[in-house]
């Protein structure tokens, strides 16, 4: 199996990471060597096996419906690269 440049471009789009030609070629070569090694799993027949859900030997705990978090606007917005005190501000969304 081989990951081509088109695939690299597609997954970089999905990951929202820009890649130019050079970077794409390097990534393709790295990923191909990593996947060569991952393909070892194909030696195993797993059709009838159940996947692992979690190693945590416990069940999901449910919390009561209580409002505890107060107005944190200042705290929340403090670290943002751009805001106008009320809102986070991002460049225009182009559909």
């Amino acid at each position, binding site marked *: 199996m081989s990951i081509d440049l088109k695939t690299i471009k597609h997954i970089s*789009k*999905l990951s*929202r990471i820009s890649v130019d030609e050079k970077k794409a070629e390097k990534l393709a070569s790295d990923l191909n060597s990593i996947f060569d090694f991952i393909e070892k799993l194909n030696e195993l027949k797993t059709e009838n096996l159940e996947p692992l*859900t*979690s190693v*945590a030997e*416990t*069940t*999901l*705990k*449910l*919390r*009561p*419906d*209580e*409002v*505890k*978090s107060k*107005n*944190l*606007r200042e*705290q*929340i*917005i403090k670290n943002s690269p751009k805001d*106008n005190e*009320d*809102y*986070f*501000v*991002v*460049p*225009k*969304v182009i*559909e």
Partner: protein
Amino acid sequence: MSKEKSEYLINRNDNQYEVVIGLEVHAQVLSQSKLFSTSATKFGAEPNTQVSLVDAAFPGMLPVINEFCVKQAIKTGIGLKAKINKRSVFDRKNYFYADLPQGYQISQFKDPIVGEGKVILDMPEGQKEVGIERLHLEQDAGKSIHDLDPKNTFVDLNRSGVALMEIVSKPDLRSPEEVNAYIKKLRSIMRYLGTCDGNMQEGSLRADVNVSVRKKGTKDFGTRCEIKNVNSIKFMQMAIEYEANRQVDLIEDGQSVDQETRLFDTKKNETRSMRSKEDAHDYRYFPDPDLLPLEVSDEFIDQLQSEIPELPDEKKKRFIDQFKLTPYEANIMVSDIETSNYFEDVVKKSDVKLATNWIIGELFAALNEKNLEITGSPISAGNLSKLINLIKDGTISGKIAKTVFEQMMEGDKDPKKIVEEKGLKQESDPKALEALIDKVIDNNRDKATEYKSGKVKLFGFFVGQVMKVSGGKANPQLVNEILKKKL
């Protein structure tokens, strides 16, 4: 009514097309705090004031599930006569958007909390069953505001993480009318259960609409288009009509329909393709490793089952049996929980037949005129039942009752007091009435003579005169009797 009458078909050339519709309804769970965080869910708060570190996806923040939201989803499932899954799994749906702080939405993909169920619609031609495919819990996204600034988009995360139930129907709906009935029924069930307030203006209830068309009589489904995020029944209906006709035009034109996501433009009243978005989407669902599978016991479900109130279908049956309402009347009375409660309160102390007529007739008309819901009715159920009792025991006539009712609409006044204060009590004393009638006959000697000579139609004239002279207060039945004797 004949079956054809409400059937929705599109005719083109010599072909008849049927529309196939399925809905994915997003209903906001009624809860104090969010699905995986402890911030508030109130509508209309100042921007970004109901956002916790979890909702804004700060590094190292983790989701912890709200038990009440789980219960609400299960209750809704029970209300939809659906299978409750004792084990369900939360998955991450991965995509980037400004109002999706985590870069993924926690949802349920393969193993939803609720499986197959059904909703019964009362259509003019009879009942129709609509299948429910599933119901799952998921997080709402925040809000992107594009029109406050020419270059920038503003992001408010107040909604981010609020619990939603996505209720997916089977492609069982066949017309905009059925969609209307379906949404209303779903809304009604959830309001009975108290699991969603169904407020479409505030976005508590919205839907993605899947539409396809096929030649009538064929079995295979056509290619469907999904119209995203429509937030009123009217728009849903308009979008369906537009979209169905668009698809028929394509087919008639020898073209094919592309499976795609479309947006309903409420200004232009048309749907348009969102293909640009579709391309980039590959949601890469996988089980959220921050959460474990959600497991609920039989006891947990049984307890919730025992808390389920009487739902519209059962209530309708009871209203027909117990109060002898017609199916039409019963449908109206159970359409929402507040109306049915109001009705039951009124009939606790007054005549059912009169109460039914007054609620469906006068009250609804008056509320409609003032644009009020039953919960905002100026007339309390107690006072309406008093009014009905005044009619029933002959204290006032139906006509006077309307005057009293109008005054009650101005403010919740006791009808007895209005009758007393304004002296509207019906005159039922035969002696007083005789005196009145004698006077009227005296003043209309010529007409009385004509009546006696056979012009019996004039009887109405005399009744009218007596009522007029009495200021409408004369007991019409007694007036009739006495007049007959006197003339």
